[in-house]
């Protein structure tokens, strides 16, 4: 006996209120009036488009300076990586590791994992589904933490502005960085995790009919 998906039975879960509705009876949810979809419309296309945009901005986000400090000793440009190095050398190892994970490891891991998920769904790769479902859930959870560096720059810039010792100004990197975080969050939201499981049922049905 295989597990039945709602779609195979003609049911769709309302994305707004969570009511299960029969699509043959009404195209709209009977409780809240939202349009019913078996799967998020053009989920893969939207997810790919946002993901590719995020990839395109990943390098500028890491290479361009996020902050420019002007002091008596000259101008100093800080990238995300040099910010981590600064924390490391000043003895705040825990914080250096946190910033390194949130700003460099998490965004890259997120982009790569979403790519793997998209390809595995599109190519209909066989294999266990549960790890992929867990990976998706992890992506939803950790993506937001990359916003960390944007906040750090915002606070530093606001504080070290109105005095003579030094001035700090945000660099173009921070814009690219915020864009990477927002775009990769949107890409994860556009992806429909139900696609991960769809093929399983088709496989089981084929096996049963053989």
């Amino acid at each position, binding site marked *: 006996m295989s597990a039945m998906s709602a779609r195979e039975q003609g049911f769709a879960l309302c994305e707004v209120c969570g009511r299960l509705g029969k699509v043959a009876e009404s195209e709209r949810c009977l409780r809240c009036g939202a349009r019913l979809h078996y799967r998020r419309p053009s989920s893969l296309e939207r997810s790919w488009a946002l993901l590719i945009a995020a990839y395109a901005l990943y390098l500028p986000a890491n290479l361009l300076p996020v902050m420019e400090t002007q002091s008596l000793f000259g101008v100093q440009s800080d990238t995300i990586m040099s910010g981590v190095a600064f924390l490391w050398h000043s003895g705040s190892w825990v914080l250096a590791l946190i910033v390194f994970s949130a700003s460099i490891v998490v965004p890259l891991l997120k982009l790569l994992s979403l790519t793997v998920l998209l390809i595995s769904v599109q190519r209909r790769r066989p294999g266990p589904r549960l790890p992929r479902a867990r990976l998706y859930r992890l992506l939803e959870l950790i993506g937001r933490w990359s916003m960390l560096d944007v906040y750090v720059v915002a606070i*530093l810039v606001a504080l070290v502005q*109105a005095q003579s010792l030094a001035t700090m100004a945000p660099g173009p990197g921070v814009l690219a960085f915020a864009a990477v975080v927002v775009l990769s969050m949107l890409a994860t939201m556009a992806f429909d*995790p139900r696609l991960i499981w769809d093929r399983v049922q088709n496989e089981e049905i084929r096996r049963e009919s053989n």
Partner: protein
Amino acid sequence: MTACHECDLLLRELTLPITAGAVSCPRCGAVLYRVSHDALERTLALTCAALVLLLVGNLFPIVGLNIQGHHVETTVLGAARQLWRDDMPLVALVLLATTVLMPLIELCALAWLLLPLRSGRRPPGFVIIFRALQLAHPWAMVEVFILGVLVSLVKLSHLADVLPGPAIWCFGALMLVLTVLSSLLDHRALWQAWEAAQE
């Protein structure tokens, strides 16, 4: 009958496994809904507390600096204004949206929905307000902001005397309240209350 929102498995509600107050999908493990008593009541109390903390947190400075006898301090709005002046309007908007606007929308929407529901009345515009709540939720990043404040405190401590402002405590408390709130809040319970309430 219901279905899992993450794997589309068709489920009979009565036979679902309950783990620690949450009902989860037997196939993929996604949390389907939570079971708790007077959750709406407690959610409302936490929402009001969070609203106060958010407002106070935005009025007071987050961090202050002492450099050569000069005292500089900044609020969230001040930081956004500075970014705007430094030709970073988009980054300023992201900062404002994730730390002020989205949490505010989320909390106001919750209060709007919960207050009438508590006395068995249907709030006007339920569907639209619920949708706003749903859309705002992933973009409220108070907990990340707190970590950002801590990192900048450490970075600045090499430059000058750093004074944590009162708002940092507000945001810290807000973070805790929001964490409890999102572990209590159950969308299914909201819709059930709405169905049970009178027009």
